[in-house]
């Protein structure tokens, strides 16, 4: 079994309660940080660890923390992004359901490092039962003296609250999350100013993903250097991967970064191979926004090297032949899945979730959805394929927030790698309607 830093105790009975969590070493990082370290020393350990944001962007956490402005007399805020809604991603849900105190502990240690005295966990509204789990854990932490005034007698005060959302993917974007937390529509803000300077209520703010914040616990306990020994290159530590799609063992797995993709898909320790003995057709490695990979670029990069579960290896080849680690939403497609239909499905998602501020995204996602729908239903023209690629290109980079890019990338990548399948939908409208993707199956047979 792989090493477990976050999920080590996930299966212990009662671990969601304070007593059991504490008995298994819980809240040691708070003790260590408050009693033996200055806030800057905690930031330093996180920098040394090489931890990168686990929500999808992969930005170095320590660096993000060091950008936080610290003007005198102005409050600072730490916000936990628990608005997990990237299709294919369900790792934060697992963490919060199983070991809520790990997140609470991470929030306290991280808030101390940043000098925040009020912190919020912004969780998607649909996870309503987890709101209760977290609030119960927070109440326990208050009773035990880990939250509130003068924590551990060290003169540090912290209040922690849960703020549920109400159904909006866009609120996972950090400035939209801040707007939503201010009680408004989740419209992303124009940057700069960045949240580190003007965030929640115009105060300096850090927004970190759930998994990122929980990773601070082992980093403080064992030291940043120890953490950095795990993984490969600039992909340090462990990563939670939520595996789904047509595999034998879907679920949430904690892996050492650097694990070969092939091993992750086929080993019984992880995904257990493709369901029903079918062939692997495609992979979306890090949530719906990242470029899809065709089967021949999954286990090996274009250079013939083994593809690894790391930020660098998955991105090897750029968007031409690579993808991104993203959020860790790992979606596996077997030979029977239709790429055009899946691309239409994802595009419908982005169209639905576009906040509507920027024309390229608001209009472009709708146009792409319509064109994909007619292609999928055998009513498309060959020229539609280039039209799609053109719309995608014009959305990318032309919007306030990354949702536009996230909507464009899956479309561009699907056309790049599966153009024959799009053409097949135009040439074989009848077969297309019968949901017979035989041509694609034959192609896989030829290559394999």
């Amino acid at each position, binding site marked *: 079994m792989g090493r477990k830093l976050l999920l080590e105790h996930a299966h212990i009975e009662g671990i969601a309660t304070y007593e059991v969590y504490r008995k298994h070493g819980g809240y040691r990082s708070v003790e260590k940080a408050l009693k033996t370290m200055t806030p800057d020393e905690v930031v330093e350990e996180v920098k040394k660890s090489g931890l990168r944001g686990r929500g999808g962007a992969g930005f170095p956490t320590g660096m993000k923390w060091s950008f936080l402005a610290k003007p005198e007399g102005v409050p600072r805020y730490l916000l936990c992004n628990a608005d997990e809604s990237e299709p294919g*991603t369900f790792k934060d849900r697992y963490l919060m359901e199983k070991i809520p105190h790990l997140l609470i502990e991470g929030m306290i240690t991280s808030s101390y490092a940043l000098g925040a005295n009020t912190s919020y966990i912004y969780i998607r*509204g649909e996870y309503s039962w987890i709101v209760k789990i977290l609030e119960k854990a927070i109440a326990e932490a208050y009773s035990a003296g880990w939250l509130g005034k003068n924590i551990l007698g060290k003169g540090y005060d912290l209040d922690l609250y849960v703020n549920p959302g109400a159904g909006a993917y866009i609120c996972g974007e950090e400035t939209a999350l801040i707007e939503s*937390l201010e009680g*408004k529509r989740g419209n992303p803000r124009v940057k700069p100013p960045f949240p580190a300077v003007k965030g929640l209520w115009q105060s300096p703010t850090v927004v970190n993903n759930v998994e990122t914040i929980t990773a601070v616990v082992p980093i403080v306990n064992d030291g940043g250097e120890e953490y950095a020994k795990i993984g490969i290159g600039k992909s340090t530590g462990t990563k939670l991967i939520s595996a*789904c799609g047509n595999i034998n063992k879907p679920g949430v797995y904690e892996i050492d970064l650097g694990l070969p993709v092939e091993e992750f898909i086929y080993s019984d320790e992880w995904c257990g191979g493709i369901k029903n003995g079918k062939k692997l057709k495609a992979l979306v490695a890090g949530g*719906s926004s990242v470029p899809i990979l065709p089967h021949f670029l999954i286990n090996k990069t274009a250079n013939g090297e083994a593809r690894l579960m790391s930020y660098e290896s998955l991105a090897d080849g750029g968007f031409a032949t690579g993808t991104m680690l993203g959020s860790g939403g790992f979606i596996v497609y077997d030979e029977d899945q239709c790429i055009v239909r899946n691309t239409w499905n994802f595009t419908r998602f982005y169209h639905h979730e576009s906040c509507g501020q920027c024309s390229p995204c608001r209009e472009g996602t709708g146009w792409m959805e319509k064109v994909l729908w007619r292609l999928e239903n055998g009513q498309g023209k060959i020229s539609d394929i280039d039209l799609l690629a053109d719309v995608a290109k014009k959305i990318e980079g032309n919007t306030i927030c990354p949702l536009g890019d996230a909507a464009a990338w899956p479309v561009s990548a699907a056309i790049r790698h599966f153009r024959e399948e799009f053409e097949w939908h135009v040439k074989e409208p009848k077969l297309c309607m019968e949901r017979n993707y035989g041509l694609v199956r034959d192609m896989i047979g030829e290559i394999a």
Partner: protein
Amino acid sequence: MHAATQNGTPFKFSEAALDEVKGLMKKYPEGRGKSAILRALHIAQEENQGWLSVSAMDQVAEALGITPIEVYEVASFYSMYNLEPVGAYVLEFCHTGPCAAEGAEHIIEYTKLKLGIGKNQTTADGLFTIKEVECLGACGYAPMMQVGQYYHEHLTEAKIDQFIDDCKAGKIEKGSWKMS
């Protein structure tokens, strides 16, 4: 303002709910009580049979000390708020990629045919509403639906049959929109 928004019968928060909303406002700094709006709307929706009438939104505005338009614009942005009446059991099916790859579309069609309604429609007996929603973070346990605060995962036709029978037999508490 959402075209379908209806006035509904006059809404009034229960005393307990109003206390809860006032309590929520204390989680935010002085003068920032508007931040309690999302949760206040969830509470209003629960107390108004699962949907937000104009009257309910107006009461949220009053409780938070903000203008009604600030509530309308928020309520119409987020997908969990129903701006028209819903059935006693709201079946919210995930239809996004990973669920679709595992047969969500089939299960949704099956349920629609069984109940004789389309999406965003309610059965004549007022029991069931079907909604299709985007990714709910249950991709590994697909296909799935959310009914109130509960996730129903690894759905099959047989599980849908059983669930609907249980609802009709009164074995599952009505008011499944309750989130707290």
